[in-house]
């Protein structure tokens, strides 16, 4: 008892003293919000490993960014919002200059906090779709794509399969989604597309975390949709595939968002998932140069975060890409605010708003083929969505489509409208071009 109290007291001291060693040593500090435990850990882990390995790579291969070493600290959120907020507050105090919350719920909570703290949020491929509008969401960066762009591309792809979007008329498309903000985000866009093309959209919610899907799939079987869009995360994906098999729904007709198309989702389903398709923002596999470098400089030196064979897997690479973009944002910021300096949150935001990664640059980073070129601006915090469909052949993922790009005609007005609604609720005034330069 006494000893316990003693420990507690000791720890409390540790706890309540805000540590700031990051700035002290001339290092660029990257807070890593992760979930390696809980229902989503199988997907959260490779993602987190990718991010960490890339930081290690930059330090080992390039000696940091223009000589500025990168430091990092992980904080376990377990995908829980309040824990995520605690992590944010804790790591913020250690000189964090950008965050990747790695969870939609946490993103929502932090979106309210970051403007006050002047720290940008990277939410690559997730978060609030409307936050692509930099005029209102000054600190959010849904780089490369949001759920709306994903849904848009999926419909485009289905249209292509049918031989033209007009052919979707009268078709039935079921959306099996994770019953949370994450799963609900795509609905507005799908409704929009439904109006345009006259297909029938059937919405089937699955209660988180998604281990109970029997009735959902019996509904699918009874509705006999032509396609099923799968909007799941974590265990929900593999369960969905198993239930699809158990109710005899053809996997070839199932299309997942880019969070429903990774190894953990299909691994233990194996042959059962054969023919299942999903979007993917990045390549998978160990061929790209950057992956090779990681194997050489990080895993080669026994510094690897996760198991070696996980390197290059879909979510691992996604994490890597996120971290790469973060690093490039810092590099870009340094070009303006002084090479070899530690960048503040505001400066990193400028970097994020002025990303210009063309093929040449990507090549120098070893990211050729991993992603398409991306450039952002003060008003466009997303850059254009380039995404492909890949298909599980029972052993591995293989791309089965060419690059798609989301249809700006449809998205722009929706984003604008949603952003304005948000601005209204929160009483935010749009940024003027002048503010963009600060």
């Amino acid at each position: 008892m006494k000893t316990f109290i003693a420990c507690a007291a000791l720890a409390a001291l540790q706890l309540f003293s805000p540590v700031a060693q990051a700035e002290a040593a001339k290092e660029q500090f990257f807070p890593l919000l992760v979930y390696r435990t809980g229902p989503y850990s199988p997907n959260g882990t490779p993602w987190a490993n990718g991010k960490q390995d890339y930081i290690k790579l930059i330090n080992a291969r390039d000696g940091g960014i223009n000589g500025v070493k990168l430091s990092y600290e992980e904080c376990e959120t377990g995908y829980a919002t309040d824990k995520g907020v605690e992590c944010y507050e804790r790591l913020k105090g250690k000189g964090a200059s950008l965050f990747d919350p790695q969870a939609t719920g946490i993103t929502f909570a932090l979106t309210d906090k970051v403007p006050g703290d002047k720290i940008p949020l990277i939410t690559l491929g997730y978060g609030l779709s409307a936050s692509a509008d930099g005029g209102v969401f000054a600190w959010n960066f849904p780089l490369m794509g949001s759920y709306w762009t994903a849904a848009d591309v999926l419909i485009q792809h289905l249209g292509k399969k049918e031989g033209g979007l007009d052919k979707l008329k009268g078709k039935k498309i079921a959306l099996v989604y994770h019953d949370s903000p994450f799963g609900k985000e795509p609905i507005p866009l799908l409704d929009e597309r439904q109006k345009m093309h006259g297909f029938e959209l059937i919405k089937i919610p699955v209660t988180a975390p998604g281990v109970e899907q029997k009735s959902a799939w019996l509904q699918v079987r009874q509705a006999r949709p032509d396609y099923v869009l799968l909007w799941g995360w974590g265990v929900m994906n593999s369960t969905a595939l198993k239930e699809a098999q158990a109710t005899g729904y053809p996997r070839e007709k199932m299309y997942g968002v880019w969070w429903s198309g990774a190894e953990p989702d299909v691994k233990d389903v194996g042959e059962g998932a054969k023919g299942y398709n999903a979007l993917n923002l990045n390549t998978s596999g160990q061929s790209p140069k950057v992956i090779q470098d990681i194997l050489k400089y990080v895993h080669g030196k026994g510094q690897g975060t996760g198991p070696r064979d996980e390197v290059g897997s879909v979510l691992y690479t996604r994490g890597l890409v996120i971290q790469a973009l973060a690093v490039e944002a810092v590099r870009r910021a340094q070009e303006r605010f002084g090479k070899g300096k530690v960048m503040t949150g505001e400066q990193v935001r400028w970097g994020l708003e002025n990303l210009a990664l063309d093929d040449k640059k990507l090549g120098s980073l070893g990211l050729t083929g991993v992603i398409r070129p991306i450039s952002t601006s003060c008003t466009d915090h997303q850059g254009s969505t380039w995404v492909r469909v890949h298909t599980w052949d029972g052993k591995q993922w293989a791309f089965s489509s060419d690059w798609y790009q989301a249809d700006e005609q449809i998205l722009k007005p929706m984003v604008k409208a949603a952003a304005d609604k948000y601005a209204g609720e929160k009483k935010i005034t749009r940024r003027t071009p002048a503010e963009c330069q600060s």
Partner: protein
Amino acid sequence: MFYRENGQFKTSYAADSQILPIRQDRIGMALLLGVAFVVVPLLSSEYLLRAILIPFLILSLAALGLNVLVGYCGQISLGSGAFMAVGAYVAYNCQARVEGMPLIVALLAGGLGATVLGVAFGLPSLRIKGLYLAVATLAAQFFVDWACLRLKWVTNDSTSGSVGIAHLDVAGFSVESPAARYLLCLGFVVVFALATKNLVRGHIGRSWMAMRDMDVAAAVIGIRPMQAKLSAFAVSSFIIGVAGALWGFVHLGSWEPAAFGINRSFDLLFMVIIGGLGSISGAFFGAAFIVVLPLVLDKLPYWTGLPMDTATASHLALMIFGALIVFFLIKEPHGLARLWATAKEKLRLWPFPH
């Protein structure tokens, strides 16, 4: 030596029935409040305020509310998370739909919303007892979780189902800064703690405890089971509802139903039981334990100096958390509050135990 009540004689029943009969306690309480209201906001870091003290205060408030129900009236509830959720969403709707609705009013409205639900789910308690009731209250938990996700008007038609609130101000003063948020919560906590204390030392409180200890006897004395139980449910869920509203407005700022999931309910019950059933201070001890302990455990890798990857660390933390809970339930089933009380008893005689 210094903690004595010698020479403090009570000359009136009023004086005798005051909350802190011993002078030293009154002084201590005054000091405590002084520190809480003045010193803490001035000195403590943003992290301490935002990530520890604010959650601590809000959860103690919720635990206080739950203690009224479980600790004083003896009705086990596993649905507190739902009541917090209702509080938060009702408050949100008041703010979002009614132009210029003052913050405090919105928060209290959240409490009232929770009260309605509380009474509704309290009615079964007239027939259902013990564990049966406990599981029945889970119905509230799951139903509300679902409703908040499903019913569009609950979230004011936000496409994602997640809601957030614009900046907070009370009577023109902005409560954006951590210190201000902290003080707001502290204000609520102090007021409700006092009110609850008054209730439990009055006849209503006695009727609750009577129901808890021996319901048949209580009925024979002329206590109406219905009145006693429902009033307990009402008071309890009101406080919990306000706590929920604070959690959403002041702590998270933007939230989804998952923020009030079943684990929240379990945590609250832990706070009440580890802190001490049927004691006001217990709610605070319990909340401190449940809020701070995980943070302390997160620090394990540092001050054990062992290199530990995040996963192992948090698994270990989870294990130790569980183990400590069992440990406390074994060592002091009556909770930390009792521990504190016995310590004071000893101190009262120290250094001459006879």
